């Protein structure tokens, strides 16, 4: 139930350079925009892609070591990989899919029935993948993986092909199954909600590198880099210039703000729902000019600029409809509590190697 991954791989647009380590079971998330290298990392661990250099050790077994010239075939690695579109073999029934590649003497009915029951596939054993719903397909793919008791489980954007209602029921199913799973899980997603829901620890990936890593709560409370701010859903991000011990000028918003104390950070983020309406004398009160409003079913996104200023970026205030009386009348001032300002670095400091 441990892994130690440290790989490099050059691609057309960026260099993948990832180090990940864990010595306990649990779900580790990789959060990143599409094309940041998170799927590539999983494919390297599975042996589908070959890193240029580095090491991959899972549960004490070396999968890959460029110095020792070790590179196990995917067939020898025994990993579980859930593909985005599940990759069920279309010409095989659910039963044949689940048993595909298993030696005949290991194809026991008892184990098979346990998987069928666990993944609620009763009665679907002889159907072909196209005769299954999206959710059933995913559960069949999971049964196919779990029957092999994989050394490490990798989930590659498993919910992105599903509609909202189905996604929720499968997220519950997966988190239920994962809580009984004794090995490590690597979960890749571009959705912060999914990462937050399923992972204990997570890393934020940007251009092939893990720019922040830590326990999931800490990652969302204190995103350390601009990429982490963006990926954990912070809508207001600005470069800053320090003007005092606890004050800075936010260049992109053209506004001066107070924060708890000066740090080495060079950008700041404000979560859109952390603004509160206030009077003109409150701390960090910003007189506002509402520019436009984007309404959602239960919330509004109010885009505004500080009154009389000339910002390069509009700021966004996100407010639930139940907190305001009339969604057309907006306050004159909004404030942000100093402790709710997220300070971060534009670039990750170079990791020591």
């Amino acid at each position, binding site marked *: 139930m441990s892994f130690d991954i440290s790989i490099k791989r050059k691609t057309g647009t960026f260099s993948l350079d990832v180090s990940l380590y864990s010595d306990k079971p649990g779900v580790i998330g990789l959060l990143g925009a599409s094309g940041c290298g998170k799927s590539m990392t999983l*494919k390297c661990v*599975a*042996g*589908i892609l070959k890193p240029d250099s580095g090491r991959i050790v899972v549960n004490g077994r070396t999968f890959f070591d460029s110095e020792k010239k070790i590179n196990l*075939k*995917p*067939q020898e*690695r*025994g*990993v*579980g*990989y859930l*593909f*985005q*579109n599940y*990759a069920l*073999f*279309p*010409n*095989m029934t659910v039963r044949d899919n689940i048993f*595909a*590649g*298993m030696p005949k003497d290991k194809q026991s009915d008892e184990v098979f029935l346990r998987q069928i029951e666990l993944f609620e596939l009763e009665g679907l054993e002889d159907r*072909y*993948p*196209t*005769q299954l719903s999206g959710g059933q397909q995913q559960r069949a793919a999971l049964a*196919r993986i779990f029957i*092999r008791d994989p050394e490490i489980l990798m989930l590659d954007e498993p919910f992105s092909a599903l509609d909202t209602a189905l996604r929720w029921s499968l997220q519950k199913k997966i988190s239920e199954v994962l809580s009984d799973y004794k090995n490590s899980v690597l979960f890749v997603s571009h959705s912060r909600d999914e990462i937050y829901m399923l992972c204990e620890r997570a890393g934020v990936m940007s251009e092939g590198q893990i720019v922040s890593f830590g326990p999931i709560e800490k990652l969302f409370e204190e995103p350390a880099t601009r990429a982490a701010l963006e990926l954990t859903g912070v809508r207001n991000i600005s470069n800053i210039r320090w003007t005092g011990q606890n004050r800075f000028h936010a260049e992109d918003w053209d506004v001066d703000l107070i924060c708890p104390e000066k740090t080495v950070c060079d950008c700041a983020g404000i979560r859109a729902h952390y603004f509160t309406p206030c009077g003109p004398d409150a701390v960090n009160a910003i007189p506002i000019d509402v520019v436009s409003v984007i309404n959602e079913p239960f919330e509004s996104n109010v885009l505004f600029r500080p009154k009389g200023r000339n910002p390069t970026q509009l700021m966004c205030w996100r407010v639930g409809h139940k907190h305001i009386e009339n969604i057309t009348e907006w306050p004159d001032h909004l404030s942000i509590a100093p402790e709710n300002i997220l300070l971060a670095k534009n670039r990750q400091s170079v990791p020591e190697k």
Partner: protein
Amino acid sequence: MNLSPLIISLKTAGLSTLFSFFLGILIAWGVVSMPRRWQGLVDGILTLPLVLPPTVTGFILLLIFGKNGPIGKFLLSIGIKVVFTVTGAVIAAFVVAFPLMYRTVKAAFEQIDPDLIYAGRTLGMSEMSIFRRVMIPAALPGIGAGLVLSFARALGEFGATLMLAGNLPGRTQTVSLMIYTATAAGDYELASKWVVVIVAISLSSIGLMNWWIDRSRRHGR
């Protein structure tokens, strides 16, 4: 009407299609599995007979399989004569029909979702088992199409066959050559009869192909 051209045609087209079938599938598998930078070169060489004028292909075959050619010399020493024999007709038909089988099957292999193959590997399936149980079923419509195309091409083969196997009535004269000979001799009636035969065979093979593709779609899902 002497039926020997039909028998020779079916024999050469049938045998060359049989060889194209197995070699086309295996070589297409080999080519899609090789590193990208080699694919272009190998693909070019294998496709060459498709784009060369058949007479040029026939001429090159004559050089290779002639009694002074590298392979011809060897075959002659073990008692196999290629030039002006039905063996030559089979070789000529195979060389021009093979690229159609190979290219169609290769395209079908390339259409397969790579995740299916990756999934097979992570599930512990051997490369051979992935080929047999994942790639072949997925490529079945393409294999059927390639089969019919290469059979039709082999049946219609004229130029390379004429160069390598000649036009010997009763020995190497296929239907295509027969039609040419009859037309040249002004016997339009005989030529028309053979034209009807060829059209009938070609139409039924297209029918067979469509039936196959339809069937494999239904079963392959």
